[in-house]
């Protein structure tokens, strides 16, 4: 991109500096200037390039093996890979219903009612398979590979609409969650889900037999932010849960978006609340920021160090 395209008459340099300063507080496309009533050419072109890139981001698949290796290295148990019924990216986009169902036929209740049936053929051979897999790095697959754990918390790493978000932020987010939740609660081994929608987690959570499920999922890629991760929390997960029975922590993508530690704190607060309330959803609110200082927004208009990472909402 050549700055020569920026027509010099339109914005003087003082204004440019003014906006450049403010642009450190947000990724939003502020202060673009005007040519007549329109966006300047440079911004129109930049937009088109970003749009082409964002469209590609939707279609690039997740490298499951690489992610599984990183997850396994955290020592939280060996990750299993669950595919949805959507067979490829194009079907995934057009058929959200399929993205909510696990691909293998074993229903969640089969697994849940037979948690220790060591005689099931694939369970019997599981350790061998694991060794074999270490060689070719592919994780075990399918709902039938999940054991009912009775753990407090299950965690799913789901590609959703941005596999890149999961690749970039999935593992550090998982680590932050494990750190804050690990000494208070028992955790089931992590699960990786592909061509996945949020509600696919309900099947996984039930199969794992966990109390509360956290689905870390790639949010749809925007023009400037293509790597945003969301966490959807569902207490007592089982197929059929409505979205009003979940809570959401969104826009995790430090440095500009929410940071891992802060997101994990919010999640911990919500887990605690859900366990106390006996349910998640609209009745459960994130009160983790309630103790922060400002009671009016007056202070926020004061100059703040623009380089400081603004990951704490409402501060």
């Amino acid at each position, binding site marked *: 991109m050549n700055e020569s395209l920026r027509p010099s008459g339109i*914005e*003087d340099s*003082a*204004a440019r500096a*003014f*906006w450049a300063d*403010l*642009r450190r*507080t*947000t*990724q*939003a*496309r*502020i202060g673009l200037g*005007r040519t007549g*009533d*329109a966006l300047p050419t440079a*911004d129109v072109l930049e*937009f*088109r390039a*970003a*749009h082409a890139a964002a*469209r590609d*981001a*939707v279609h690039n698949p997740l490298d499951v093996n690489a992610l599984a290796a990183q997850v396994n290295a955290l020592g939280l148990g060996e990750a299993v890979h669950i595919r949805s019924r959507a067979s490829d990216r194009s079907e995934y*986009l*057009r058929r959200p*219903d399929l993205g909510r169902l696990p691909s293998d036929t074993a229903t969640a209740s089969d697994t849940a009612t037979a948690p220790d049936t060591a005689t099931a053929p694939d369970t019997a051979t599981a350790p061998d398979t694991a060794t074999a897999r270490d060689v070719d790095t592919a994780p075990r697959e399918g709902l039938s590979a999940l054991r009912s754990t009775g753990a407090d918390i299950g965690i799913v790493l789901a590609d959703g609409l941005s596999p890149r978000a999961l690749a970039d932020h999935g593992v550090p987010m998982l680590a932050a969650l494990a750190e804050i939740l690990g000494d208070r609660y028992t955790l089931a081994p992590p699960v990786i889900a592909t061509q996945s929608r949020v509600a696919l987690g309900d099947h996984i959570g039930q199969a794992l037999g966990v109390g509360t499920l956290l689905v870390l999922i790639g949010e749809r*890629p*925007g*023009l*400037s*932010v293509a790597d945003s991760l969301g966490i959807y929390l569902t207490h007592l997960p089982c197929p059929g849960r*409505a*979205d*009003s029975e979940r*809570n*959401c*922590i969104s*826009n995790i993508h430090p440095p500009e*978006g*929410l940071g891992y530690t802060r997101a994990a704190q*919010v999640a911990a607060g919500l887990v605690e609340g859900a366990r106390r309330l006996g349910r998640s959803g609209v*009745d459960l*609110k*994130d*009160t983790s*920021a*309630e103790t*922060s200082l400002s009671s*009016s*927004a007056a202070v*926020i*208009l*004061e*100059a703040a160090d623009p380089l400081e990472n*603004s990951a*704490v*909402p*409402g501060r």
Partner: protein
Amino acid sequence: MYHQRIGGATYSFDGLVELLAKATPRRSGDELAGCAAESDAERAAAQWALAEVPLTTFLEYPVVPYETDEVTRLILDTHDRVAFQAISHLTVGGLRDWLLGVAATAEAGHTLAAVSRGLTPEMVAAVSKLMRNQDLIAVAKAVEVRAGFRTTVGLPGTLATRLQPNHPTDDPRGIAAAVLDGLLLGCGDAVIGINPATDSPKATADLLYLLDEVRQRFDIPTQSCVLSHVTTTMGLIEAGAPVDLVFQSIAGTEGANSGFGVNISLLREANEAGRSLRRGTVGDNVMYLETGQGSALSAGAHLGTGGKPVDQQTLETRAYAVARELDPLLVNTVVGFIGPEYLYDGKQIIRAGLEDHCCGKLLGLPMGVDVCYTNHAEADQDDMDNLLTLLGAAGCAFVIAVPGADDVMLGYQSLAYHDALYARKVLGLRPAPEFAAWLDRLGMMGTDGRVLPVPPLSSPLRGLASAS
């Protein structure tokens, strides 16, 4: 059972729900739900058959059962039989002729307002399926609906904007910067409305205080809104936070609304709570509602009478019945917001945007549109330019605008602030009058109604985004 012969073949449609769905212009969401017409010929046949259905049928055969759905009960129990009188003899096809006949008269605004409460969402959905895009534009343009709080929205010859300064972490400095940008481009007369990234009541309150202070400091005649869940907002009203508008997403079935965590009585309560603050000046409409085709299907709450899937556009119009119960200041469809599984490409988004706008206005709503698309849909800025221009011609009350068309928190493209300037200029439209007067006081309004470019450093508003 409805039958229709066309081109030598006979098509049958099992009941009104199926007929409505098959008569709908092609869209991915209905294909996903399994209720779309299988060919253009079948669709044309369904439209013929639908055209001959008397309007009274919609009062007798609810599309979603009365017993199990409170939205249906609301629709039928509040149906105004007196207002209906003037059109009660018509078929759906006759209603289209009637609407277009009226639209061409000088007293169209009055005539259409008079029947509005006699129309049910299903009648309006049905007739819209027979209408071409030009019909949707011509009829919508003829309808006049206005509402007010600190500005008046919906006046003929105006196009207002929601200024949407979202930020991934709700950072007040980033949000203030985006507000400044929008105000300098003449946006924000419908509302300055933030989607908060978190649902934390504390963070929401902080944003409410921020916006209220900005508004008062610069004496901006507009209203603010933080679009958290209605329950969060109600809690904050109780706690004394400065709430102008009460926001909620709504849908067209009881099930879908419950998936959103709301029901009609909760919404009525929220409306009361909002009004009780008496913060409006030129009017007391306090609700801000968003809708959008596909949300019921997405929640698995899209089945109607006989267990058959109801098409998404009919369900969308039913959400307007919920909306009109609440006398809102603003209602907008988020037309291309959810994704290609409901509206596949630019063509479907444009069509749905025009449908939603026309149906909402006919039902008496101050209707706006979030002219937008996601990166997984087959659409681009050209499609949005088209839709914006068409909506401007159709007399749309307001559109949503964000910096550079890029919402960095919600991950989609809405309009840019600039786009509103374009539409106003090309179509000769102006901001809401109270806001236009304010722009004028700041030296930002040209004699021809154009918002003038002002260097940020010479605008008093510059203080908005810095402490000095």
